[in-house]
């Protein structure tokens, strides 16, 4: 990306399907060290300063996609359902819900006493207006496509919302937990909210100094346990190493890094506690199977065989992460070894190239964005060096993020190094890419009737075991055809100084547990 500030897009909206396996329970992962549940009875208050590299780009939750913006929205606004720390769907503004037998109607019973930050009540009229506006194209809300199964929204009384669906949708409850479907007061407009956010979350906006800081204060109207902190300040320090020095001098007490080296220097020089959190997002070499040599499955398989995922991980992220297959959510996790070349195999790569009639090698253009996330260019360099040994010459195209996104969306690339958002539910993660009607299918460059079929089955099924089996099949098809080369998942590192307690990082990067955090 242009310039050294991490304007990181949350790799795909934070929507996720809950009711799934416990993330931390994913055995053997060196994941979260979040044994520290908030100590009971502490209400010490205090002011927490979080160092962030960029300012929020909007205060309107329906259009928030950038990492830092989503984090702020997350604590200002509330949603019908929510995630717990293991990404299970739990009640939010809706206290309970019923599903009809045909699974075409969903009835929410709203919690009583939910108020917006300005003191007004949040009732079914606000929920209905919010959901209707999100689904209206003129609003340009990013979550619209996730709510496409909703046919109509009715509010029979002030505490009840009934959704009529066009077809059963296993993912809807989880979509409604995304901050992009935040419930807004029916009186508010985007213009007003950009000035004065008015949500049902545990915090409210206190002060904003653009490009300098954004300060939140506890919202005493919050329906749940009140936040412990008096204020949270997101202080904008564009340079990550400067955040480390600010932690070192005690001016900043918390920050989230995606570069293990920066986290390491925060740990050593600033004596910070580091919590590692496995991410759902996955690092991948996207191949565009509609372009040139890559239309040949053998070429793609040769590329798969020539890349040692562990080596990419070791070079780019110092080994901090895990090699992965397509599906990253713990409940549906693909077996990383289930692919034609589980380990790097140059002989096989040569064999595949021979089959493709490219025994003398070929040239591949790989695009990569600079600066959007810490490891991108390093991954590309490792891949380039490894493919060179298999007679595949990689021409790297290092692009500023605007150019990268433009070309990515237009599918104007042979191959792309990417960090794509994983979601707890594999349907939401991949149907947009690999079904022929998916809105990112052109970018993915691959679809087949067989895949369409499997995705359709997976979405309508409500049997976990059956779904797991379906997504395994999908995963195998993707790997056997070397549609993309999945590389690894990495961590984020939450660094906190020793006086900060009760913060729990989440796999979807959400900072919602700021509400249980305290400082002394």
């Amino acid at each position, binding site marked *: *990306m*242009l*310039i*050294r*500030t991490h*304007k990181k*897009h949350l*790799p*795909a909206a934070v929507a996720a399907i809950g009711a799934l396996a416990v993330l931390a329970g994913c055995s053997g992962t060196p994941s979260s060290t979040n044994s520290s549940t908030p100590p009971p009875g502490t209400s010490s208050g205090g002011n927490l300063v979080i160092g962030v590299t*960029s*300012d*929020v*780009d*909007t*205060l309107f939750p329906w*259009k928030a*996609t*950038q990492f830092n913006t989503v984090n702020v929205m997350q604590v200002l606004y509330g949603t019908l359902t929510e995630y717990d720390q293991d990404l299970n769907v739990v009640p939010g503004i809706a206290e309970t819900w019923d599903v009809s037998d045909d699974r075409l109607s969903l009835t929410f019973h709203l919690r009583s006493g939910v108020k917006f930050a300005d003191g007004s009540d949040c009732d079914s009229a606000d929920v209905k207006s919010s959901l209707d506006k999100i689904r209206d*194209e*003129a*609003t*340009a*809300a*990013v979550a*619209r*496509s996730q709510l496409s199964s909703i046919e109509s929204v009715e509010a029979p009384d002030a505490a009840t919302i009934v959704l009529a669906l066009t077809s059963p949708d296993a993912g809807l409850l989880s979509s409604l937990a995304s901050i992009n479907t935040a419930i807004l007061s029916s009186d508010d407009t985007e213009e007003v909210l950009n*000035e004065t956010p008015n949500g049902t979350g545990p915090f409210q906006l206190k002060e904003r*100094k*653009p*490009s*300098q*800081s954004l300060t939140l204060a506890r919202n005493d109207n919050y329906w749940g346990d009140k936040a412990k902190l008096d204020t949270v*300040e997101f*202080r*904008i*320090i*564009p*340079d990550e190493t*400067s955040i480390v*020095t*600010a932690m*070192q*001098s005690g*001016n*900043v007490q918390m920050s989230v890094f995606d570069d293990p080296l920066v986290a390491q220097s925060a740990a050593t*020089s600033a004596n910070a506690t580091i919590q590692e959190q496995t991410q759902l997002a996955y690092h991948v070499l996207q191949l565009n199977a509609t372009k040139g040599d890559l239309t040949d499955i053998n070429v793609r398989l040769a590329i798969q065989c020539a890349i040692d995922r562990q080596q990419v991980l070791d070079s780019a992220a110092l080994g901090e992460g895990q090699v992965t297959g397509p599906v990253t959510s713990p409940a549906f996790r693909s077996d990383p070894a289930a692919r034609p070349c589980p380990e790097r195999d140059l002989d096989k790569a040569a064999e595949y190239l021979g089959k493709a009639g490219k025994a003398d090698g070929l040239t591949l253009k790989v695009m990569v964005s600079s600066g959007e996330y810490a490891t991108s260019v390093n991954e590309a360099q490792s891949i380039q060096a490894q493919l060179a040994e298999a007679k595949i010459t990689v021409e790297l195209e290092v*692009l*500023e*993020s*605007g*150019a990268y*996104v*433009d*070309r*990515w*969306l237009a599918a104007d690339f042979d191959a792309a190094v990417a960090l794509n958002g994983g979601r707890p539910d594999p349907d939401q993660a991949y149907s*947009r890419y690999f079904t022929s009607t998916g*809105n*990112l299918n052109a*970018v993915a460059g691959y679809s087949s009737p067989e895949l369409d079929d499997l995705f359709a089955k997976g979405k309508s099924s409500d049997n976990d075991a059956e779904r797991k089996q379906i997504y395994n099949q999908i995963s195998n098809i993707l790997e056997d055809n070397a549609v993309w080369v999945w590389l690894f998942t990495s961590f984020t590192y939450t660094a906190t100084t020793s006086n900060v307690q009760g913060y729990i990082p989440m796999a979807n990067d959400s900072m919602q547990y700021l509400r249980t955090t305290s400082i002394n």
Partner: protein
Amino acid sequence: MLTRIVHSSITRRLVTALGTLFGVAVLVFIMLRAIPGDQVTAQFGIESGALTPAQRAALESYYGLDQPLLVQFFSWLGNLFTGNLGFSARAHLSVAELTAQSLPVTVELAVITIVLSLVLGVPLGMLSASKPNSARDGLGQVVALAGLSIPAFLLGSSVMAWVATFWGQNPNGQAFARLTDNPMLNLQQMILPAGVLAFGIAAPIMRTTRTAVLDIRAKDFIRTARAKGVPKARIQMRHILTNALVPITTMTGLQFGYLLGGAIVIEQIFSLPGIGRQVLVGIEQKEYAVVQSTILIIAVCFVLVNLLTDMLYRVIDPRVRAL
């Protein structure tokens, strides 16, 4: 007669300046459109792939991107004349308000930097010139060479890490304090970045001073003064320094002008919310109006500083004044 000449020269300058600013406006406008991506993709990233055409159209009209380019250009330009510099959707502030916050920061940084570099550069230059090719000249030259050769980002990052490690303090890690709110903290936050910049800027000032002093010392009127027995200190201050002021002023003015748009890297490292960062964030978010107006403001400052420098000669230099 005299006033007419002055008039016509000032008018000519103003016309040229306006032409220059118009050129800057055109250049920045074209350049921004040439950079791939627009405000929609900048805001939504790859999620903009999930937008329907109608959603995309709604956003484009929201950001005014659906207008033809010429209309965009002239409506921006027209708005400038009514004092409307545009609006930043990101900061939810007008560009005028944003600039009112960021420009003083950069100007303050530039002023402190210039003062520090004059304090460092002028005496050092005079010291060097006092005995060319001596050890002290060598010292001055080496300092100047170091200033010219060590890049600010290297010096800046190292200085900050060093101060945080050994002093256990990092004023720049605290929330930015405005000069008017908390002058003490503000000065603490300014001193390191200004020092780093001044180290670099003192070098050309030192060299200018040295050369100018050597030049003037070789002039006849100084020899005459010496022969007449005017005290050495008086010659140094009254004759040499006053005459050397013109080139020093030129150099200072130019450096000041460049500092206004050239301190970005330092603003970035030391988290100063200056005007350079305003441009940077604007480019990143593709907020066209913000970048266009801000660059134009920097250009206006630059032109103004140069005009001022020119006028200053007239005050300093008797010969120019006589013209």
